[in-house]
């Protein structure tokens, strides 16, 4: 039993790492632009599908590198053409806009790639388990966690040490001041949105290798990302990181004892957090008000 639990904690961290990547992108956009991107799951699917289409030409590794950037470019276009127009309006409009656009994207994926599930081929060695006892950890999962760690570190370094990154962080705290310093807020937000989509696209390629592709694949991952953000604390990327890992582990552990509640449990965690510590585990006071 102890071993089963230990396995599941490990496993939960792996799943959680995946939520983190998705939730960080969502969180970036939410913090700077005050927009909940309902289409985030669809950008994820888009990244996966692009990898599927590109991998015959570029190979798996080429697709892994290229498709997130194409996803980001598409995100950039979407932001410029549509989302930008609703920034200064009542939040109901940005929600409806991304919500509706999510429908269009999902349908487009179904139209282009078909309603059936598609597998994304992986290099042979990645599909093997790392050892007979740790059979549930395939090299692919190790690889996935590795990519997530690199991506998260890269993101934090970017936000910390580059000028654009610093502006994004500053804009999160006080957009007006940043604007008054002569920073082009509109471009900053566009770039930030594209950055969020880049992370979604990367998540998509990784997810495609694990669970395959289908037009609805983003839907099931969107809600856990929301929860990761709420639990971790809105406004705190570190919080999102821990939130994602926490719910990953919680869901995996629940599967040991009462599998059919593994989805419900993450919502229960959210309720408890809202009750006990409304601003989230690492959220700052006032951010959510």
């Amino acid at each position, binding site marked *: 039993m102890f071993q089963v639990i230990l*396995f599941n904690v490990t496993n939960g961290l792996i799943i959680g790492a995946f939520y983190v990547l998705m939730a960080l992108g969502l969180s970036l956009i939410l913090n700077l632009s005050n927009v909940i991107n309902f289409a985030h799951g669809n950008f994820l699917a888009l990244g996966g599908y692009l990898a599927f289409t590109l991998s015959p030409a570029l190979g798996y590794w080429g697709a892994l590198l290229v498709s997130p950037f194409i996803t980001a470019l598409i995100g950039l276009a979407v932001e410029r053409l549509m989302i930008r127009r609703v920034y200064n309006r009542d939040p109901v409009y940005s929600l409806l806009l991304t919500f509706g656009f999510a429908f269009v994207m999902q349908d487009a994926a179904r139209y282009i790639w078909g*309603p059936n599930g598609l*597998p994304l081929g992986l290099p042979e060695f990645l*599909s093997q388990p790392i050892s*007979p006892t740790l*059979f549930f950890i395939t090299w692919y999962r190790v690889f996935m966690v590795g990519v997530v760690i690199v991506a998260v570190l890269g993101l934090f370094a970017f936000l910390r040490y580059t000028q654009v990154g610093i502006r994004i962080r500053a804009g999160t705290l006080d957009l007006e001041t940043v604007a008054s310093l002569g920073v082009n807020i509109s471009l900053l937000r566009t770039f930030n949105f594209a950055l969020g989509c880049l992370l979604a696209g990367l998540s998509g390629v990784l997810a495609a290798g694990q669970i395959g592709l289908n037009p*609805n694949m983003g839907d*099931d991952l969107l809600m856990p990302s929301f929860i990761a953000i709420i639990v971790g604390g809105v406004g705190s990327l570190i919080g999102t990181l821990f939130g994602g890992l926490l719910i990953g582990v919680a869901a995996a552990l629940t599967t040991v004892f009462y*599998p059919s509640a593994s989805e419900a449990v993450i919502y229960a965690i959210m309720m408890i957090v809202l009750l006990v510590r409304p601003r989230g585990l690492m959220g700052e006071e006032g951010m959510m008000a």
Partner: protein
Amino acid sequence: MATIRVSINRRTLIKSGFALAGSQVIGAPFIVKSLADEPIKIGMVNPLTGVLSALAQSEVDGARYAEAEINKKGGILGRQVQLLVEDSANDVGTGVQKTRKLIDRDNVAVILGDVNSGIAYAMSQVTNEKKIFHIVPGGHTDPITGTSCKWNVFRICNTTTMDANAVTPELVKKFGKKWFFITPDYAYGHTLQDAFIKALKKAGGTFEGDMLPINNTDFSATLIKAKAYKPNVLLNNMGGLTQINCMKQFTQFGMQKEMALGGALFELESVKGCPPDAQTGWWTMEWWWNQPKVPEVVKFVSDFRAATKKTPSARDWFGYVGMHTVRLAAEKAKSLEGPKMAKALEDLELPPDVALQPGKVRYRAGDHELMPNIFVGEVHPPKGEPDDLFAVSALVPGEEAAGSVADTGCKMVAPA
């Protein structure tokens, strides 16, 4: 994508969908034609969007194919047939609404659907209330022709019990009696697992299992448990995309080296969605296209491929049988009234060019369940041609797998 091509081309006389809406709105009440000129309308409600869309689409394709075939041969009772397809979006409320729409507005004579048993059941409440003949081509849970059976409802696909009973002896004989179940937590999964457990207990076996959310994407936690249990057979009762994921993770974790894999259904659409190393295990098919010894099947498959550019699956066959069942029932009853068609269909035997398999295939009068053969065998990666993915090892007669009518719990009540 096949979906749009078929559904739009057939239904629209005018190119634009909106223009069609307009024409129906304005045209319907004012154009009065003689009844003989009016086509017989058959309504199908299926989840064309959502996780079951691939299966639903196959049923539509099969039904479309039959529609064309029937019309070419002079229609039903001398009238042409028109199939109207509505999307239930895998949502009960929408499914019920679309059923009412087909009955109230389009005046369909018959309703077909839904792949989702829950929606099929909710639809049957409506059709029963309206006394409309209703065929469920592909919703598997037992109650539809069991405890909740209705005089107007007939079913083509097997019950979950039939599938479980058909494959269990084969699995027990080949691999052993210690089983582990991975089952989706909804009616289909529950009835399927219960059926397996009943059959397994009869054989004196032991088991353990997990009930997982229906859209579960990660199976590692459960597979960890399964591995610890060391079963002879691991049964994957999941459906659709979830089943594919489960198969993939199963093979990724190398579990096939330690235990056999199997289950009730692993449909052609799903097998094709798996990478080659996950195309494995012992399963049932409710119909299989590769029956070289049956000339009707050989002809059907080649004609179907010519018309639709794909190999027919069991789902295509369900849709196909559904349409022909309407024809057979109407022609025997010489009427389109629900009660008369239902009466006519009881114990009606499908002709070979519809049954498309050896032996006798009939709708059992007691529970309105079709009694076809169940194809038990092994799934394997493509051999020769891309759709040759299954080797049939046994044909189990449906009646044998279904048990008696009393076992199903169906108490048929005649129409009031």
